[in-house]
């Protein structure tokens, strides 16, 4: 299952929001990827996510595969929509 969203928070995918995303993604059994700018990174890897170098306004596609894929995609999409307010 997948969903495309836009990063709304000021700092983009810097250490803190990336950390929040990794923690959320790690709650799910599914394999989760974040795709952006032609690259795909494991959503449970903080360095992978940060190396995407995503800024505010970037479009990302959340892709999850597994028994809880729907919840995973929704949960992460919600994080993005909430601007990663931890």
């Amino acid at each position: 299952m997948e969903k495309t969203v836009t990063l709304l928070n000021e700092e983009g995918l810097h250490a803190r929001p990336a950390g929040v995303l990794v923690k959320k993604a790690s709650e799910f059994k599914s394999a989760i990827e974040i795709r952006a700018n032609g690259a795909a990174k494991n959503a449970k890897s903080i360095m992978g996510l940060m190396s995407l170098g995503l800024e505010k306004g970037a479009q990302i596609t959340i892709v999850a595969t597994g028994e809880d894929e729907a919840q995973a995609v929704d949960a992460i999409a919600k994080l993005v929509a909430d601007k990663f307010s931890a």
Partner: protein
Amino acid sequence: MTLWGKSASPGVVVGRVLVLAATELKIARTGTHSPDNEVERLQGALAKAKSELSRVRDRAASELGEDKAAIFDAHALVLEDPELIDAAVEKIRSAKVTAEFAFQEVAEQFVAIFAAMKNEYMRERAADIRDVSMRVLRALTGAEQVDLAALTEDVVLVAHDLTPSDTATMNKKHVLGILTDIGGKTSHTAILARTLEIPAVLGLKDATSILKSGDTVAFDGETGEVQPRPDAATLARFEKARADFERTRKEILSFKGLASVTQDGRALRLEGNIGTPEDLGILHKNDAEGVGLYRTEFLFMDRAAMPTEDEQFEAYRQVLASVGAERPTIIRTLDVGGDKEIPYLNIGKEANPFLGLRALRYCLQAPLVFKTQLRALLRASVHGQLGIMFPMVSNVEEVLAAKKMLEEVRAELQAQAVPVAPKVEIGIMIEIPSAAVISDALAKHVDFMSIGTNDLIQYTCAVDRMNERIHDLYDPYHPAVLRLIDLVIRNGHAAGCRVGMCGEMAGSPELIPLLVGMGLKEFSMAPASILRARKIVRSLRAADCQELARGALTLGSGREIEQFLKDRAPIA
């Protein structure tokens, strides 16, 4: 042999050296363990590093605050990164190498990816990844890392530089002093050392190669003199200097609670300059009569993204409440650019950062950033006696534009029924010569002006105070600077506008009589200088100081003025 460095934090120290050396790691490519065992070793090391980090994080949170501790959370996540761990495990199994070899290679690959990124913030993360991987490698190779938190004996720390990890974790009770190879009076380490009242000499260039752990060292944080392995005569000299320093310190403490008033009854206000709420302890300990300058940049530095309005509000509220309703707290709006790099603001490289888009100019062009700060300030205003101060003002138009934004923010808050103090004073820093020259015009638009002597001297004399080659040209006694100060004070008073000073000159014993003579009434300085300033003030007669100032201002050269003051107003 004598070493000379940059005086960073006063105090005389004689103590035992502890050198924080860059750790030498022995990374063996192959070993005697089976791949399964190597994987186990790796996991053990990861766990050890994780618990270390957790301790570092907790210490950082209690010593330096939550936001400074957050970086260690990110470090911990790196240790759980499946890309990193899976790649290392894969390498162990396929190449049949040791855990340390595999991990180092994989970590370096990630470091290289980040180091090559266009974004400056990302490039800085390379250093974080290296820092974290060092922890794991140390755990794997059994290399010793001096645990600064576990210091049990008094030591003088000697290092190339102190990292945030170091300063966050060190057991301050046992740190007698700090000596570093790089850095200067305004570096992070220096500011921290002064805040913690730990004597320090920085920028020694090769302290780490000349001094060895266990050596005795004697140094003077005020003069910058460092004596490795001093002989008996030198030791005696330093012990005496130390005793003098301690005695002066104790004597100075007796001025706590006394009024800052001259012999002939002129009352002055001696305030403190602070950088973070953590400085409040030192502020009160030194009996400051208010905060003449709260530098808000520290809130914005060393972090990944802008502090939120709430984070800012909390810091401002804390300071305002601590200083109280009876004493002023002047908070300066964001003063960045040039030397203070704040990557997420994307100000970018400029040819002349000190003459560029910085401070108020930047804020006026970045209304989202500026208004967030102004909102936080106005919300906090109900907790104390707030004065908002705009830095680097160069003309009247900027002041009007800033005031307009402030009014817009106030109106917003009012519409949202958020309480704001009815009277919030507005002031400006006078640090650019153009502002000093038109201070009569500026005074009409503000409640107070505060002279920022550090930058005023730089701009007036065209000297970069960090440039060692022209260091002598940075002269607080330069008649041009003194005449400008005199002009600002007179213009301010003529317009019924208060004038204060928040640069280093305000706390300079040699210059206080002159400043009193010029009519300066508000002096804001490093908290550690306040009691000494009070002692001086109480020994002066304002009338005599006025004579002194009149005479000094007729002279044409800095050295003449310096000598003139020395001859006529010797400080006991």
